[in-house]
């Protein structure tokens, strides 16, 4: 009857003012990129929507919807029938969609929800809903209308063309990737840092990740694990440059020269110093970590303030107020959890004192730090950093 299209709803970018086209155009580009493997499509914007129309009869709509559901900037997606704005055609299309769903699952109640963008259309929204509802009731049996808690809802949007659809797939929301600048994410391999990265990337920010690698105190598998995590993130936010920093020498030097209970805090300061340099080198404007207050010894408020001082860039900690359970839930939703819990040593777990200092002071920390000859080692670590280009989906 009509043609199948995908509607993608954009969230807050529609609230933007004069610079709105910047965000919209980026989103259009990102959508085209996400769908690039699926055949020729035309993507265009109209009012608060993006429309995706395939030019290919074999286009896989479900696959496309799946891909769009991880594109930042899209709030929700529907696979719709695009038809002429004509009450007779709308009736028939709505009935057909109803029947298609009814064939697949038990439906006892339904509801029609109409939006009328085209104000010249003779019927008002509620009148259209009543008309289509009546038409479906006339042509089916054993079905009733329930406007509060229906088994299914059929949506009708009357514009220049009319769109009929029944399912709404949730997207990730956020802002289009590439509209928010670039950050450096400290990616450890644990549960928290990928979530912190995802939350930041969702705001349209491009990620470059830094991983501190302590081979042979940790394994090649632990590096592979971090690459896998970056791959999962890249499916959302596009290619990620992963900087793998050789960190063993710094840890050895610290453990030689400094008291054990300060090791973790000094190690974290060294990480910040290195991240700071990498950030400056690649045009990133901030550093993102997965810290949350009080989770471990190095994440007490005192410890965070002492480590923060080592970084000249702003450090963002999107998980700062989250409980571990919340982070775990988020990691599951994003899809990083199963990878994160693989049991390989990472650089933080080997060089750990039984009782690290939880309330370090800056003066004492810096005094200990000065005993180690870190400057040259930090230079070397930055110079010997391996860069891995992790491709997005």
């Amino acid at each position, binding site marked *: 009857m009509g043609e199948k299209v995908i509607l993608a709803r954009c969230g807050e970018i529609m609230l933007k003012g004069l610079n709105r086209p910047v965000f919209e155009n980026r989103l259009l580009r990102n959508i085209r990129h996400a769908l690039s493997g699926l055949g020729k499509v035309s993507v265009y914007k109209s009012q608060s929507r993006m429309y995706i129309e395939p030019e290919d009869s074999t286009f896989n709509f479900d696959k496309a919807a799946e891909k769009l559901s991880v594109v930042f900037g899209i709030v929700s997606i529907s696979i719709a029938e695009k038809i002429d704005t004509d009450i007779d055609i709308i009736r028939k299309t709505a009935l057909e969609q109803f029947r298609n769903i009814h064939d697949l699952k038990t439906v006892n109640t339904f509801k029609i929800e109409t939006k009328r963008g085209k104000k010249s259309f003779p019927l008002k929204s509620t009148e259209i809903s009543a008309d289509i509802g009546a038409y479906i009731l006339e042509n089916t049996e054993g079905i009733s209308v329930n406007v509060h808690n229906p088994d299914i809802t059929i949506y009708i949007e009357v514009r220049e063309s009319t769109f009929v659809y029944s399912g709404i797939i949730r997207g990730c929301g956020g802002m289009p990737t590439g509209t928010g600048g670039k950050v450096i994410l400290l990616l450890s391999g644990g549960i928290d840092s990928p979530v912190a990265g995802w939350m930041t990337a969702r705001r349209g920010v491009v990620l470059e990740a830094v991983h501190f690698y302590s081979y042979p*105190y940790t*394994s090649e598998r632990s590096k592979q694990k971090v690459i896998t995590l970056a791959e999962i993130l890249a499916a959302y936010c596009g290619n990620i440059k992963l900087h793998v920093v050789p960190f063993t020498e710094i840890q050895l030097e610290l453990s030689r020269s400094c008291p*054990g209970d300060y090791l973790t805090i000094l190690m974290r300061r060294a990480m910040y110093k290195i991240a700071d340099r990498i950030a400056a080198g690649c045009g990133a404007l901030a550093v993102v970590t997965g810290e949350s207050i009080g989770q471990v010894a190095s994440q007490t408020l005192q410890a965070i303030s002492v480590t923060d001082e080592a970084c000249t860039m702003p450090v963002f900690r999107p998980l700062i107020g989250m409980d571990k359970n919340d982070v775990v839930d988020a990691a599951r939703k994003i899809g990083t959890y199963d990878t994160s819990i693989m049991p390989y040593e990472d650089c933080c*777990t080997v060089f*750990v004192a039984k009782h690290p200092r939880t309330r370090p002071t800056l003066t004492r920390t810096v005094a200990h730090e000065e005993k180690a000859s870190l400057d040259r080692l930090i230079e070397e670590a930055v110079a010997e950093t391996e860069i891995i280009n992790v491709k997005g989906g």
Partner: protein
Amino acid sequence: MRKGAGNIIYFDNSATTRPFDEVLEYTNRISADIYGNPSSLHSFGLEAELAIKKARHSIASALGASPEEIFFTSGATEANNLAVKGCLAAISKGRSAFIRPEFVTTTAEHPSVYEVYEELSAEGYAVKHVGVDGKAVADLDMLEKSITSSAAMISIMLVNNETGTIQDAKTISEIRERKCPDALLHYDVVQGFCKMDLTAAKKCADIMTVSSHKIHGPKGTGAIFIRKGTKLSPVMKGGGQEGAMRPGTENVPGICGFGLAADICVTGQDNHNNIIRGVREAFIKSLRENTAESEFVINSPDNGAPHILNLSFPGIKAEVLVHHLEREGIYISAGSACSSKNKRISRVMRAMGLSQDIAESAVRFSFSSFNTISEANIAAEIISRIIPSISTGQAGRRRGNL
């Protein structure tokens, strides 16, 4: 150059072994030429069937069993699952007359037995675990005391895969005869197969399980010995292959390679064992000469299987040593995979009652006849050199020059 042919030192032969060249060539040839389905009626299928028959004879003769008592599986994990679940299936089908069957095993079993019993236990079956001592020797007094005539099966790993500890097959069998003659005796002999005399075990066992890739055969193949008349029911249904005990089109190249590997191992057994003993002794000797006695602890018993040597280097986490050695081209196993976030001490080490420090640092060296005394000396020297340079990162536990 092929890995293991001089450019690396492979001391992880309990994990898996380097296949014999003859086996590779043979499996390749079978894959290429004898690809018929052994169940096909035509003569091309028969060729494959005959190749399997030959392999079955090889495995049977290596175990001192008859060919009809050998059933090929995808490996020892499947064979162990089949042993325990097959026993239970026979009982629930009324083929075995147990009213409230009990299962008896040890705390130091391989996961392919241990986890199956965990599942049975969760389903409400009575599963008794006999403890082990500090050298992983099963407490047979406890076995004698705890076992009753309700026991339907006793499952014991004859040679422990982490420590090389050999259990006393004869005494176990006597206890069975005295206390529960109807119980099936199931030995997991994976680590002993083709490496030691299994006559005593074979004499009393109703079921034995073996694996191909631990004896230089291909992966993905194993076998279960089921004594004639043993009441075991299959757990899979299919086209009736392997006497319907393990249906599914046979892994012809794998099975054939397994058979050939067993032939080679049996023929060379004494020679292989001499090489392995020599390597082990040289390794320990060289380690003692180059390292302070206090730096390491031997967790394996003196009278265990010669190819498995479990050591701890207290203060050095097992995984850390594994990675330091891999950098030198030496491959070993970590007894325990552990991270300080998620303590994962090996269950067997815990069952042995080893201290946290010893268990966390337990590593396994396992030898084969491909290893040489010179490899043992080189490895021991490298370890002695590396150990003092490994920092533990823990305050007050710095070593050597750190």
